[in-house]
């Protein structure tokens, strides 16, 4: 009885007016969110539009053949020869190679930090990894050029160390921090109950990680991979320094190559006219390339769901 006498009685309820205010705020908030999303989308669309407009000009207005552009193997801008097949090949190989190394290493390291490592170790490793993310790509390039390149040259006994394999290593290293820190957040968010459920069924810690924790964190891990790949692909400054940049069709992992990204970055500073537009077209191809990669990754992950 005491409860009733205390709880019932004056209702400190807010009246309708008050609620009306709340709905106004609610609407306002929603609109602000929507406008922000709109701004994001607009700025992103602007860039896409800009790149496509510039990049398609030579083919629409100047009569260049897009097929020749894609299938050509010669790139001599000053002789009006624009073929990027060798660069497409180089990009695909180097990206795949970097993915094969960087993605598992990144995810497993994230799993280690969030699930296996003692708290003290995790507390040091996680900011250390974030630190890696903060190192400018130029410095990765400097490191690659003055450390990796000579060593690769020595190890494989090559005339020069600039090669596909060097690019792959540098890209893999560069995507690590992004993958690790985003994946770590995702893995930490997996409910404890899942882990307990698995452990109670006699699964080991490692089995639990691989069979329950990582699959449960899939969406976040995918985001990590996509952002990581994005960072690695988008950052050209390091690659320029270790690629060798010869526009030739690679025949082995030790060849010097020129990926699409470096083609843009390396020549943009001095390019003008058609040459510059062709570099934008290279950007369009790269964009399509990334689009496809994302599609594939998304498909893979949604397949894994059910």
């Amino acid at each position, binding site marked *: 009885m005491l409860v009733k006498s205390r709880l019932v009685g004056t209702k400190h309820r807010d009246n309708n007016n008050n609620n009306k205010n709340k709905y106004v705020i609610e609407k306002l908030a929603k609109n602000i969110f929507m406008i922000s999303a709109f701004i994001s989308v607009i700025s992103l669309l602007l860039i896409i539009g800009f790149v496509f407009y510039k990049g398609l000009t030579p083919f629409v207005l100047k009569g260049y053949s897009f097929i020749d552009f894609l299938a050509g193997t010669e790139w001599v801008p000053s002789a009006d020869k624009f073929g990027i097949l060798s660069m497409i090949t180089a990009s695909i190989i180097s990206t795949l190679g970097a993915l094969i190394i960087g993605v598992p290493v990144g995810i497993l390291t994230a799993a280690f930090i969030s699930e296996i490592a003692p708290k003290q170790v995790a507390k040091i490793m996680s*900011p250390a*990894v974030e*630190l890696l*993310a*903060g190192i*400018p790509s130029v410095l990765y390039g400097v490191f690659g050029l003055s450390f990796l390149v000579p060593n690769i040259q020595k190890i494989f006994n090559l005339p020069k160390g600039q090669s596909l394999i060097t690019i792959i290593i540098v890209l893999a290293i560069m995507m690590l921090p992004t993958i690790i820190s985003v994946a770590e957040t995702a893995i930490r968010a997996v409910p404890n109950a899942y882990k307990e459920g698995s452990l109670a069924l006699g699964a080991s810690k490692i089995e639990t990680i691989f069979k329950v924790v990582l699959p449960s964190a899939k969406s976040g891990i995918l985001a990590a991979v996509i952002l990581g790949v994005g960072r690695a692909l988008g*950052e050209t400054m390091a690659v320029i320094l270790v690629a060798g940049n010869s526009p030739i069709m690679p025949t082995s992992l030790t060849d010097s190559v020129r990926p699409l990204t470096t083609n843009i970055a390396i020549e943009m500073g001095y390019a003008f006219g058609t040459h510059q537009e062709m570099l934008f077209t290279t950007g369009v191809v790269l964009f399509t390339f990334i689009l496809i990669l994302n599609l594939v990754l998304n498909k893979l992950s949604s397949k894994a769901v059910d």
Partner: protein
Amino acid sequence: MRKLKENILKLLVYLSVLFTISTLVLIVGYIFIKGIKGINLSFLFSDYSASGDGGILPMIITTLYTVALSILIATPIGVLSAIYLQEYAKKGKIVTCIRFATESLAGIPSIIYGLFGGIFFVVTLGMKYSILSGSLTVAIIILPVIIRTTEEALKTVPQAYREASLALGSTKFQTLYKVTLPSAIPGILSGIILSVGRVIGESAAILLTAGTVAQMPGGIFDSARTLTVHAYLLTKENGDIQGAASIGIVLIVIVLLLNTMARLVAKKLNKANC
């Protein structure tokens, strides 16, 4: 059989960790060994001089300006966009498309953003080469990172929290800032930390929008040179690896400081609601 598999998996994990740690140690170690000789007080705190041994103070200031400005611009827009996509927008084709576009944009080389910014902000909007143009450009670059990490962070907040709050007569917005966002803060923060890294590390895009003037900036409407652009020019034009490494050390320290600050902020915010 099971033990073997277990051990192989374990080995894989430890190899990965070893790889990560050794690259970290190698890179940071390399930068320190190469660059530490160049670090001294006058290097850090005196004005730059093209002809002689000036310091890098203008570049440090410019870097801080750029980071602050671009994060200030991109974080609200990115976080709010993510909230819209995750909490308000109807799940459907449009959201999927937006998400897809943002993800794909993350992979465009930054130099293309630079060229865009160089035309859009610098010329069309008349901002000239300036810290503002540069910051706006990198703000666009980091938008996808912030949007995506925030979305992921929001996704991991249990639906039960939202239900509980709504059932208590809270509006969606109240639920958002009282329950959902606080729970998502660590995730959002790691996105911001990544973005800080990206801004600090940016060279091409900034070079084409903020310019390379090696002078103390008077404000955000001045053109100026960030540390990374300086390191980039030193490497590219002079082959001055040692100078670049010295700047690298400064950058690492700045990143460390900013990350620590972000962590402290996160702790504060977490304490506030628990």
